[in-house]
């Protein structure tokens, strides 16, 4: 029975069973029907020692290929300061539960309050919750908020400029939650304002969800959206990349009612897709419909400043099926991650991250066009990621890049490929990629490329 995570000696077990009045451990399962007790050996590997576990994962790690990242599309390879892993590994944060006992959870509650302050600061909204699972599920919650906030409306409109994984998750929630969706097409790489107006005019629209930066990397001009949606008593919802909000016009400035998105871009490693952290923010009019945990400031009986989970009457453990959502947890530790990141970066650091990403992305964009392998897809403003029309089949291009250890040119739509540049990418990096593409004999046709045989 001896095992590092079980402290019981044989003698301990004997004494404990005696106190209970049971003969054996199995007697403690006397209430379980005998035919559901599992008596076979479990189909699991033999127990490993720590060293063997390390070796095992090192072998698995060799089956992954580390690639230099020039891809965005919802996961961004930004620089992550050395401080953060040290802070979030502190066991007082890592091994704590939800702060239901505020007297011994002020650490968690305080950083959530700071996180909320920073997210509202970035988005220009009045309030936000303690975080959501990821951007896509935050968008689904935004959809349900819009439905709950606007009685008698039956539809939510989604821009086709949203990232495909976000659209798919919202569609899944909508299907089961009973929300009808409508779609606003893109025209020339941006959400069609005219199409949105025509749809909203029907008067049955609870909310319109548009991207701040769309799947082509283009910064959307949302002039007129808020007025048009509000005129029909609907809500404007924006899906934002929070990192970008240090420099681009905020959803608050556009007049949005609800903002959602993924805060992975705030320094969280790519981590094969998770854990990331979603955010959901709104104007104060919609606070009572906001799902999830919210931390508020208060005082203790001695008058000391303290923080506590608040407005819990919205939540599942109180309201059960009448709750604003079924969400019970948040991505707390990842909220700490981005709070520490934003503290370190500050307004100036975050601006520089965008400045460097912007400059690098535009340099790569221009140099790729010079290779003759690409054409401009849309001549619209972008920040750190962009889309080009590839004259070479996208799969071929992606394979060719992978031969030099670069991940990029992911196909967004047929013939259209994505590139993304962050502050981690240097001019030398870009020059090397461009020079390679220029010289690697990619054939502008659908024929099989020689590069595959390099």
């Amino acid at each position, binding site marked *: 029975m001896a095992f590092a*995570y*079980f*402290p*019981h000696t044989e003698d301990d077990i004997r004494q404990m*069973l005696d106190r209970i009045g049971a003969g054996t451990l199995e007697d*403690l*399962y006397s209430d*379980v029907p005998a035919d559901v007790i599992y008596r076979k050996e479990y189909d*699991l*590997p033999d*127990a490993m020692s720590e060293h063997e576990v390390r070796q095992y994962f090192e072998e*698995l790690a060799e089956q*992954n290929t*580390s690639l230099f990242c020039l891809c965005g599309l919802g*996961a961004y*390879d930004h620089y992550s300061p050395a*401080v953060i892993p040290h*802070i979030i590994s502190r066991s007082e944060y*890592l*091994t*704590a*539960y939800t702060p239901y006992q505020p*007297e*011994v959870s002020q650490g968690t509650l305080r950083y959530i*309050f700071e996180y*909320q*302050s920073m997210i509202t*600061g970035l988005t220009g909204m009045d309030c936000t919750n303690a975080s959501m*699972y990821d*951007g*896509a599920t935050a968008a689904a919650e935004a959809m349900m908020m819009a439905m709950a906030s606007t009685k008698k409306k039956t539809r939510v409109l989604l821009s086709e400029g949203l990232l495909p994984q976000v659209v798919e*998750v919202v569609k*899944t929630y909508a299907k089961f*939650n009973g929300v009808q969706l409508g779609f606003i097409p893109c025209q020339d790489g941006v959400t069609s304002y005219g199409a949105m107006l025509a749809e909203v005019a029907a008067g049955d629209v609870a909310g319109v969800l548009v991207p701040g930066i769309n799947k082509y990397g283009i*910064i959307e001009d949302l002039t007129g959206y808020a007025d048009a949606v509000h005129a029909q008593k609907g809500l404007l919802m924006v899906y934002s990349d929070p990192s970008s*909000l240090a*420099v681009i*016009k905020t959803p608050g400035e556009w007049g949005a009612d609800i903002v959602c998105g993924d805060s992975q871009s705030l320094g969280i490693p790519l981590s*094969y*897709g*998770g854990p990331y952290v979603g955010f959901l923010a709104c104007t104060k009019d919609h606070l009572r419909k906001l799902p999830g945990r919210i931390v508020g400031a*208060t005082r203790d*009986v001695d008058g*000391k400043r*303290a923080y506590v989970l608040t407005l819990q009457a919205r939540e*599942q453990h109180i309201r059960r099926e009448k709750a604003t959502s*079924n969400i*019970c*947890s948040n991505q707390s*530790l990842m909220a700490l991650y981005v709070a*520490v990141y934003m*503290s*370190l970066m*500050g307004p100036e650091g975050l*601006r520089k991250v*965008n400045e460097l990403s*912007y400059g*690098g992305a535009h*340099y790569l964009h221009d140099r790729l066009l010079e290779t003759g392998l690409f054409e401009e897809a849309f001549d619209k*403003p972008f920040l750190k990621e962009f889309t080009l029309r590839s004259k070479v089949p996208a799969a071929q291009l992606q394979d060719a890049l992978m031969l030099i250890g670069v991940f990029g040119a992911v196909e967004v739509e047929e013939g259209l490929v994505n590139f993304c540049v962050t502050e981690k990418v240097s001019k030398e990096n870009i020059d090397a990629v461009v020079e390679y593409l220029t010289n690697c004999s990619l054939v502008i046709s659908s024929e099989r490329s020689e590069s595959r045989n390099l």
Partner: protein
Amino acid sequence: MKYYDKLIFDLSKAGRQGYSLPTRSWDATLESLPAGLRRTEKPELPEVSELDVVRHYTNLSQMNFGVDSGFYPLGSCTMKYNPKINEEIAAMPAFAGLHPLQPAATVQGALRVYRELAKALSAITGMAEFTLDPFAGAHGELTGLMIIRQYHISRGDLKRTRIIVPDSAHGTNPASAAVCGLEIVQVKSNANGLVDVEDLKPLLDDTIAGIMMTNPNTLGLFEKDIKEIAALVHQCGGLLYYDGANMNPLIGMVRPGDMGFDVLHLNLHKSFSTPHGGGGPGAGPVGVAEHLVPYLPVPKVVEDEDGLLSVVDKDGNACGRISGFMGNFGVLLRAYTYILMLGKQNVKNVGPLAVLGANYIKESLKGCFKLPIESVCKHEFVFDGLLDQSTGVTTLDIAKRLLDYGFHAPTIYFPLLFHQAIMIEPTETESKETLDGFIEIMEHIAAEAISDPESLKTAPHTTPVRRLDETTAARQPILSYKDLV
């Protein structure tokens, strides 16, 4: 724990920086963006040095209690030890550096982790297949219910839109069902704290999509009639959903699949040792029986005959997509590490040792605290307050007093079946000495309730802050630094 009163914003001074970025310059600058697309004012973020940040968050952490700080007998939360090797593996750059859209050929190691963890969870639970995409327990519940609905819809059985939920269920059960568009039908508990089979029978008709069960239930009691319930629900065409929040006592002893459950979720942050992180990130994998495999969400990982793994993103049978990418992958790595450490040898003892601890505390304390249902319990049990409640000392007072003595409080006022519920769950990673220390303090508190009730009613006394004004917090919400200053 010492009180520290600053917010990071209080430390801010214009011109300080905590970052280190390359100094390179590019030709294109943000000024070339159209002015109408640019932000007009700087975001309200602090300007602090690196040491400011390190000290601030270190000081904050010291006002927090974690499993590593002390005993955390929080019922229904399974606060077991979080092994450190889990953290080391999850931080390996070969996993942490992978972009989620990388082609399958370049992420075979990561997909192998996903696949092997799914298989191990199948072995432990007796389910045919798993999705590891759900982010948390409640998210797993929602996904499982979507699978149930998709199953009925695919059979053209469209009127099954009601779901049975016991009155003792976790609050997420009815909430998840509501998000999934299901109408909730409540089934009562009997005097023994179990689902009342006679109350259940008349509820079963052709509008029932299924029943959500927690077994052992939130009183820590095994639903002995589970096989009869399974037969009844299946006969009426419904499916059985297993809320895996209470899976820990069954690990190594009982498989939900063998009890007749069709769908379940597990909380990797409870039963499989991944840290709770102050409320997340967790993971809520969903397992299904053979007949429901087609309805699992996308993306899913499939293995071909040569052992090559790939990701399926589109599948017309699937209930849909429920996560941006493939769940909280870092959490999956931790849980898989834990299972490899356990192996087939140690897995058998997880449940029994957890159950041993719970019964040991229950039997030791039932002379001071009111045990409403006398029965062998599983991983947790519920007292209904003090045996002697004449002094007016409540469950809240007991919980707060425990904090003074260096223990985290149990779960209180849940389940709702009793007015003074105290739900205690020790887990298998706590020693007899730790449990004895807790028992001694609980006895001491019961004695204090008679001798000095005021010390309990005003507890805690030694924590960084004392009881909070929660009413004002909700009436006049202050939710950000901007509201505070």
